[in-house]
């Protein structure tokens, strides 16, 4: 695995920006600072109307999350200049891009099925962008070789795309997009073309590359877990509009609609695993069924959380945390409780159970989660 050769430095570098508890989404520099992305995308196509405002500061990783047909890909194509805007504006690092043709935009795109040029080697695919921007052939290839090396693909430089595995092709596509030094990196369903096994590895690698990326990264996905792991801010879209945006943990604990409650129904934490125990950065431990070592993500759905008024004794659940109810929101026949305390988390329970527990903001409750209902994966 090329993975293991990655230094631990870049893992550590990302730890501090991936804290789970921050409720306020990181705002980009306000109007006037100019750095980063400031866009309002209006695209009208027949009866469909896309109207989304997107802002992001350099270094941000933003995920556009939503069901099929929500307009995510249209938004991405509008940012790349592949779809003309019917209205709104698009500024990147202070420069107006509304009317700039795609080839002149400092925007890199990783397409869903990568679209590596089948007749060119991996090296020449990556060198394509620099070549188009006027770099001499030998120099462009040297730059491409550095990128491939950074992606751990040095030995595949001469390979044609059809000889690459899905994960390798994904990294070549990423290298190709990054080789033009974009100020905005767009990723369209970056993990959708991969099978479940490679997906976890590639996701972990992609996360590190995105964390290293110094400009704005925006990815489109319909998979909430991918969005929550890869991005530090989610923008949830439905029917061409933004329905909610914020940090993953904020949205998970304060979903604005039933749909979002279902979609972003995950408690996600980052920590360091030793065997079946994952120690989170700020204290508590989570017991999982996976046997892992090193930095990991742990996730469990709000429905897996059971609440108790007294500290449960003899419970089969290995995970018990002392929490306080910070808020309650009704979603259909479910109530989502926002809990703070030892471990900030979201819990779903039925209205009946909530009534029996006499659940209201303030008092202490005990939350338990069975190890079997948690899921850990390498970060």
């Amino acid at each position, binding site marked *: 695995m090329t993975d293991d050769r990655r230094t631990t430095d870049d893992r550590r570098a990302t730890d501090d920006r991936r804290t789970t508890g921050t409720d306020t989404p990181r705002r980009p520099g306000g109007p006037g600072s100019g750095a980063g992305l400031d866009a309002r995308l209006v695209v009208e196509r027949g009866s469909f109307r896309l109207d989304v405002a997107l802002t992001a500061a350099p270094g941000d990783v933003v995920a556009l999350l939503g069901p099929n047909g929500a307009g995510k890909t249209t938004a991405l194509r509008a940012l*790349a*200049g*592949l779809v003309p805007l019917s209205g709104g504006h698009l500024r990147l690092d202070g420069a107006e891009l509304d009317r700039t*043709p*795609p*080839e*002149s*935009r400092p*925007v*890199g*795109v990783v*397409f869903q099925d990568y*679209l590596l*040029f*089948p*007749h060119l080697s991996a090296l020449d695919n990556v060198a*394509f*962008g620099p070549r*188009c*921007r006027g770099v001499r052939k030998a120099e462009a290839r040297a730059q491409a070789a550095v990128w491939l090396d950074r992606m751990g693909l040095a030995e595949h430089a001469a390979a044609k795309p059809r000889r690459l595995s899905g994960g390798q092709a994904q990294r070549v596509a990423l290298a*190709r*997009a990054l080789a*033009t030094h974009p100020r905005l990196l767009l990723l369209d369903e970056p993990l959708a073309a991969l099978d479940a096994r490679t997906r976890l590895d590639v996701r972990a690698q992609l996360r590190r590359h995105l964390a290293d990326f110094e400009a704005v990264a925006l990815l489109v996905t319909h998979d909430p877990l991918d969005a929550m792991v890869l991005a530090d801010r989610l923008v949830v879209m439905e029917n061409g509009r933004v329905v909610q945006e914020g940090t993953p943990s904020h949205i998970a604990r304060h979903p604005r609609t039933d749909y979002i409650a279902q979609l972003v129904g995950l408690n996600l934490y980052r920590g360091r695993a030793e065997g079946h125990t994952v120690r989170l950065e700020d204290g508590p431990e989570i017991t999982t069924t996976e046997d892992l070592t090193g930095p990991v993500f742990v996730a469990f759905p709000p429905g897996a959380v059971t609440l108790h008024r007294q500290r449960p004794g003899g419970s089969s659940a290995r995970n018990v945390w002392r929490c306080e109810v910070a808020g309650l929101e009704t979603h259909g026949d479910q109530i989502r409780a926002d809990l703070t305390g030892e471990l900030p988390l979201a819990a779903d329970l039925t209205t009946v159970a909530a009534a029996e527990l006499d659940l209201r903001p303030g008092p202490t409750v005990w939350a338990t989660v069975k190890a079997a209902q948690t899921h850990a994966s390498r970060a």
Partner: protein
Amino acid sequence: MTPLGRAGAADRPRTGGPRRRRVRGTAPLPLLLPALIGLVFLVLPLLALLLRAPWRSMPDLLTSSEVWQALRLSLVCATAATAVSLVIGVPLAWLLARVEFPGRGLVRALVTLPLVLPPVVGGVALLMALGRNGVVGRWLDSWFGITLPFTTTGVVLAEAFVAMPFLVISVEGTLRAADPRYEEAATTLGASRFTAFRRVTLPLVAPGIAAGAVLAWARALGEFGATITFAGNFPGRTQTMPLAVYLALQNDPQAAVALSLVLLAVSIAVLAGLRDRWMTAS
């Protein structure tokens, strides 16, 4: 074994014999007879050509200077016509396949017209356009002193006029089948639309262009009507193989047969080449 099997199949029509034999046996006569006649109709003339070929005098006939002259002229002109078709036909195919513009259907119909137009009409039309008194030819003559009809260049033009639609249709089909998103990917990497076409699309559709070029070349090589109408029949200058065959038939039928065999051989070679191309391309 075979007669026995056939008898068995006849005795037990529902269960007997392997399926393929039964299907073959039950091909209805009203279909089978015309089908066989059709096959014979297509193959017999070619067989006759082989049967009547003056095999003994063949070496002498084929090494005569007129034959070589005609053959060389044919190859040069067909190749030049193919080159002309590639230079202007591939961009035309791209335009038809990739650019939305009003009247695109009409343009496509106009491009296809020479496919169905009698070539001799094409020759007359070329004369009206590029002849000495033609719509454009008049100015070419008086301004630049360029005369096209009855020259070798005229042969190339007549052949390109007839052959280019084959190339355009073939390349357009390949372009339509090619994923336009590769061009989009190229533009996001900083390629202009032309660079994207040159460095991405063109290599992707190269097999289709090659197949179209071979088709056009074969069509140009056999071109007769438009050539004789627009370029005439001057040995060494405009007399290509088909014209030479036609002329030879009148005073030396054996030579005509020999020349025809050469063209037949070229056709078979083209067919074989295309078969490989299409099999690897699909």
